[in-house]
């Protein structure tokens, strides 16, 4: 069962892509271009808001942001 925090992140991504109704936890957000370089900053902002943490943009590990599963493990576990 997913946390409310990762649900917020999923909803934010789906809100940007109305052609999609669902998003599996293992979909690569970057390779699939669901999140591009401009939107990546917004994704970080959304995660910060949902997790109540501050993320150091200069020291980001991109693998933490690859899929909903990796985001959940890194920020909502």
């Amino acid at each position, binding site marked *: 069962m997913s946390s409310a925090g990762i649900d917020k992140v999923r909803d934010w991504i789906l809100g940007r892509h109305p052609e999609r109704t669902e998003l599996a936890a293992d979909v690569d957000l*970057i*390779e699939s*271009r669901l999140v591009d*370089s*401009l939107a*990546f900053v917004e994704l970080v*902002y959304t995660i910060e808001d949902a997790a109540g943490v501050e993320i150091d943009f*200069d020291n980001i590990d991109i693998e933490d942001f690859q899929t909903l599963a990796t985001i959940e493990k890194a920020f909502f576990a």
Partner: protein
Amino acid sequence: MNQPLIGVDLVPLSRVDELLDPGIGPLLRKYLSPEELTVSRTPDGAPDQSRIAGRLAAKEAVFKLLGAVGRPVPWQGIEVLRGPGGRPGIRLSGRAAELARAAGLGPIDVSISHDAGFAIAVATSSSARSAPSLPAPSHPATSPDHSTSQQSATPKGMP
């Protein structure tokens, strides 16, 4: 011999609209430095969508010169300011400057244009490092015969 490099990027003005949304308005400060925000305003002080979109496109175009595919764009470390004669001038700092040094990058030039709801930017430079060779074609008999392979320096950054 120096390796020529080129990067290009396109930003729809509608993306700037989203960033100016009051709900996420402060987000623009994550992309633009205080100095860039100052020079991205209309004469009456409102955010200038075209200038903002042009700067964002230029930052991504410059990022594509840095050879950092798959890493986040260091938005604050690539500043697009007013250079001599009104041309865009680039100032690198932090991680962007480190990447440029590691790539052996020479001076960077940028050109920006906007029309019909889009901003486009092209960045050029050269590197003392030679580009990695492309893999050999799998069907050499049907491939054009080039004595040297050339590779675009413009793979999308992150993503």
